[in-house]
């Protein structure tokens, strides 16, 4: 594996069965052709769950914008994404004394969520607003001194129609363009 030299957006995608996921595929397809964007499918690269941490860190360091795209699983991220965070974001590199390699990079969470938007509130059956579940990502970005951007979320992801999926893909694409100041369109 090698580090692409003219890429500014790193698009991490963590879905164990990406081919079976209409919503996640739709997002990847919508952004894949953006110039200066590298799609980085974690489950394809590390199906045995052994992560090449040095490569991952070099890759992160080479990009200005980090996007994590994943389905919402049990109110959190899929296990390999979680494992990736634990293995790659080391003290002294990503945070802590001397850990400033992610400083000032853009950070965006892009998620597909099975439940409806209104269920994520005190009155809904999921009882908590989405911010509560996103707090781990939010604080991770903060600890690593990255710039937090408002997450792009597709609710009702499982039952979404084709046009809704296409529309969501465009939202993600526009968000990226806006974040990178038009360098990625």
């Amino acid at each position: 594996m090698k580090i692409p030299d003219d890429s500014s957006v790193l698009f991490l995608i963590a879905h164990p069965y990406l081919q079976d996921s209409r919503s996640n595929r739709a997002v990847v397809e919508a952004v894949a052709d953006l110039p200066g964007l590298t799609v980085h499918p974690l489950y394809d690269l590390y199906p045995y769950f052994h992560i090449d941490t040095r490569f991952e860190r070099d890759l992160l360091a080479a990009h200005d914008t980090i996007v994590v795209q994943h389905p919402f699983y049990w109110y959190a991220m899929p296990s390999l994404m979680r494992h990736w965070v634990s293995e790659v974001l080391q003290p002294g590199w990503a945070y802590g004394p001397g850990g400033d390699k992610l400083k000032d990079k853009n950070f965006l969470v892009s998620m597909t969520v099975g439940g409806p938007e209104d269920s994520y509130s005190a009155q809904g059956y999921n009882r908590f607003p989405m911010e509560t579940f996103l707090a781990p990502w939010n604080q991770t970005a903060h600890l690593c001194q990255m710039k937090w951007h408002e997450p792009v979320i597709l609710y009702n992801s499982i039952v979404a129609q084709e046009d809704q999926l296409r529309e969501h893909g465009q939202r993600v694409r526009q968000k990226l363009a806006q974040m990178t100041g038009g360098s990625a369109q």
Partner: protein
Amino acid sequence: MSHGFLTDIVLLLAAGVLFVPMFKRIGLGSVLGYLVAGVLLGPWGFGLIAEPERMAHVSELGVVFLLFIIGLELEPKRLWAWRMPIFGMGTLQVLIVSGLVAICARLFGLPWNAAIVVGVAAATSSTAIATQILRERNLLNTKGGSSAFSILLFQDIAVLPVLALLPHLAGQAAEKKGVSPWIILLVIAGIMLAGRIVLRHALRIVAGAHLREVFTAMSLLVVVGMAALMEELGVSMALGAFVAGVLLATSEYRHAIEMDIEPFKGILLGLFFVTVGMAVDLTTIAHQPGTVAGIVASLLLIKLVVHFALARAFNISLKERPLFAILISQVGEFAFVLLGSAQVMKMIDPEQTALLSASVALSMASTPLLLLFYDRWLAPKLAAMTIKQPEGAEVHNDHPEVLIAGFGRVGQIIGRMLYANGITATVLDHDPDQIELLRRFGFKIYYGDATRLDLLEAAGAATAKVLVVAVDDQEDSLEIIDLAQQHFPHLQLVSRARNVGHVYELIDRDITFWERETFESSLRMSTEVLKTIGWEPYSAVRASNKFREHNIRMIYNLHAVRNDETKLTSAARQARVDLENMFNGERETLKSNPDGWDVQPEP
């Protein structure tokens, strides 16, 4: 007596076979058994042995072999680490003990020169007795044990100048007969440098011939040849053998040689103790029992006290001190030589010589008794007293945690993986060519057949944690496992399996970890196939994980029902039935990703 050498041998063997088990049984130890046998057979006992001198000469080889084996077990690195105890403690021990004993002897009316000879004789300890015990109790790895051994080594070296000085002490002009010490040093240095390479090459060639008895002959040749060379130079044979042993300590054939020499050593050492017993002059003891007892008691007292003080000064833990002191408390066989020479040079008269020699022999016999006392009374008390005291054992890797039997394609990967993680396994393999190649890459490998109990033992099975059975032959594999389970029940076994039939045998033996040599790699390859035809990588991995899980479960299930059938069917037929069963069972493992998420649970 009119019988000859052969009858002597028969008598000695018979006495050994009779007395040693008896003494061991009563708890007095084998050394005392041999000594008593010697006393009874000797000229002062029943006078059954025709040629005690000739016997004595042959039996000296026992000590030679013993020292050779000790040398084998000591890597030069470790020996180098002992230079301080050897020269520091050794010098002090010899000087202090011989000084004190010389003063006593002077007080009893011996002239100064004779008193000094007696003093030096008294300072020496019995390498044969002490080293035998050190090995039996595995004490060389403790600070006390290694210190005792260091002192013995120093005494062996110190013997050289003492013998050279003897004529001067006697007031005689030294007749120039010995080889100059420079030549001796030169020869030893030459052996140290060239011996290593020459010996290794010779051993490799001989081992390559795959003739067991020739290899044994080669081992004997190395030891006896070295001892003979040293004797020719006027150096102690035992010291020469020790040097030879150290030279081969890092050789891959170390275990094989050790196994070959061990039985010879045992028999000859026994013989040696018998000849010491034969030297005990019963008439002298009977005539002057008080004097002999007094001499023995004072000698032991002086030595024990000095050793105790030395142990303290050199920071040997309180717990180890008594054993250390006892180990080298007896007067050694070298005293016989010194006293004999002194008598010849007219420094002491024959009566004094007889008295002292009897005392020396008795002091040797005292060691097993003192040890008995130590084991029964002192050790338990000390253990209770010093529980908090840290162990004085030094760190070394002579006790590997991991043994790997079989260093073929499977064993090699295991060995390398462990090695990469800082764990040096001891490897047993029987193919010398390959061993040599791998040794160059820094592996610790020994030559031998792992189905032999003594080899496993020599490699450290008693203290290792894990034995990896990676030999390719199924029969050998099972044989090693049976041996290990029988003799080293603490050993965890990790076993390579040739095929499912082999796996069943391993399950029969309750082996918890077995692995078919081809299974995991084949799974990896099948995963790759699925990916290549378009499966998502993680789904492919998941499928192989499920296949493994299912397959292992099925093996245990089939194993349970199989045992009754195997008796009826041939192995080949059984293998086909096994395969068929597996095919049928495995159809169940279809690709199935886990079910998704129910988005609309009951509100």
